[in-house]
């Protein structure tokens, strides 16, 4: 099992998500961001940065994160807000949040699984990446988008091109929603993501660019969004 370092912003939702036994069992160590400077990133296979962490608390660690990535490490940032200030290659555009699209069964939110064959989806159901989103990403050249909003940008990508390591970025916020006891899809995504990071194949054999892979059009899982 890979060793995962879970960075903690000290919020209630970071705590309740990380303390959930189904998440905690995959976490090797949990460290408050204020103590990150005293932590050797190289001791871990994966460094997880949660959603809705104060980005200014991570800026002092931009150099350490870059060195860790350059050394082949894996960083997962579920926070894209100002992440360009401490991680390479990130272009994030905030979008208007539509909490309501799923109320109309006829509306297609435009969310597409770009690489259904990616091993992530052996752990995460295609429908579990669907709720509202707060922004879209423009993946850097060579990165693989796994989930797109059609015509808008990426919701989740893996970048093995910008550094020697893996940088996985998403604008979805499963730690916030799961830790707030709010949104079954977020819970499914968080559980699946942790299992994949700890035990799954990371999909390194996939070519960064492939013109002929199938794109899967996904619909919301019924009842998966809200109460």
């Amino acid at each position, binding site marked *: 099992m890979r060793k995962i370092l879970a960075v903690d*912003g*000290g919020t209630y*939702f970071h705590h309740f998500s990380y303390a959930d036994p189904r998440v905690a069992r995959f976490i090797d160590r949990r460290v408050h961001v204020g103590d990150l400077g005293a932590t050797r990133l190289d001791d871990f296979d994966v460094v997880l940065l949660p959603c809705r962490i104060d980005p200014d608390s991570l800026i002092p660690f931009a150099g350490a994160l870059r060195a860790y990535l350059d050394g082949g490490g894996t960083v997962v940032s579920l926070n894209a*807000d100002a992440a360009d200030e401490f991680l390479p290659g990130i272009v994030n555009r905030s979008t208007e949040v539509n*909490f309501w699209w799923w*109320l109309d069964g006829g509306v297609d939110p435009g969310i597409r699984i770009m690489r259904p064959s990616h091993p992530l989806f052996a752990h995460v159901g295609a429908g579990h990446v669907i709720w509202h989103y707060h922004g879209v990403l423009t993946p850097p050249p060579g990165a693989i988008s796994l989930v797109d909003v059609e015509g808008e940008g990426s919701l989740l990508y893996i970048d093995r091109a910008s550094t020697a390591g893996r940088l996985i970025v998403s604008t979805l916020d499963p730690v916030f929603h799961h830790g707030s006891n*709010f949104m079954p899809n977020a819970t499914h995504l968080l559980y699946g993501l942790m299992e994949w990071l700890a035990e799954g194949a990371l999909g390194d054999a996939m070519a960064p660019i492939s013109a002929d892979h199938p794109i899967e059009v996904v619909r919301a899982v019924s009842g998966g969004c809200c*109460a």
Partner: protein
Amino acid sequence: MKRCLFLRCKRDHAPKIFDAPLWAGMVENVHQSRFPELDLSPYGAIIMSMLTDQASLSRHADKLESFLDRGGLLVVNGHMAYPLLADVAPFLPQSGHGTDALAVHRLADHPVFAGVAEEDLTFRRGVAGFYGRGHNPPPDGAIALNGLGAGKVALDWLWRRPKGGTVFMHGGLDLWAYAGDPTSAARMAPQLLNWLKSEMRGETCDA
């Protein structure tokens, strides 16, 4: 008049309404990381967001307690995960599912909720659960303002502490997140600021 301290959790975090002309100069935004060295004497009230780094702040719980002991007012949003306040128990997630478990019930009148319809807290565009998903159990002597679910557990409560000071608890989404709603829920943010203003002037109006 004393000012109100908003413990900002990231840049550009303070809601626009805090700077509206009606309350100009009343709310001061300070990043919460500065709390340990901050002189609290100019402040009559502190507002905490659901995004608060409770782990760090809880290391200074004694400073919060003495602020309250001196008569301060503390507004808390979110779920209690760390021991920020003595006598306030950790968050309990709501049991049960569906709209009944997430319905908001008015239990006592309070200026912050004046004219705010229960259904505008229970539902946003017909969807339940934004306002609260559980509760922070109140201490003895607190007044439950809004209750959640069939058991009407105290989601929002007001506690006039025997040792002095006041805690206004909302155990869910930041109250000001509703400021732009096209419903009566939008009344909460301005009414919170008005209530803080009158409290800091010593005009108690919830009794």
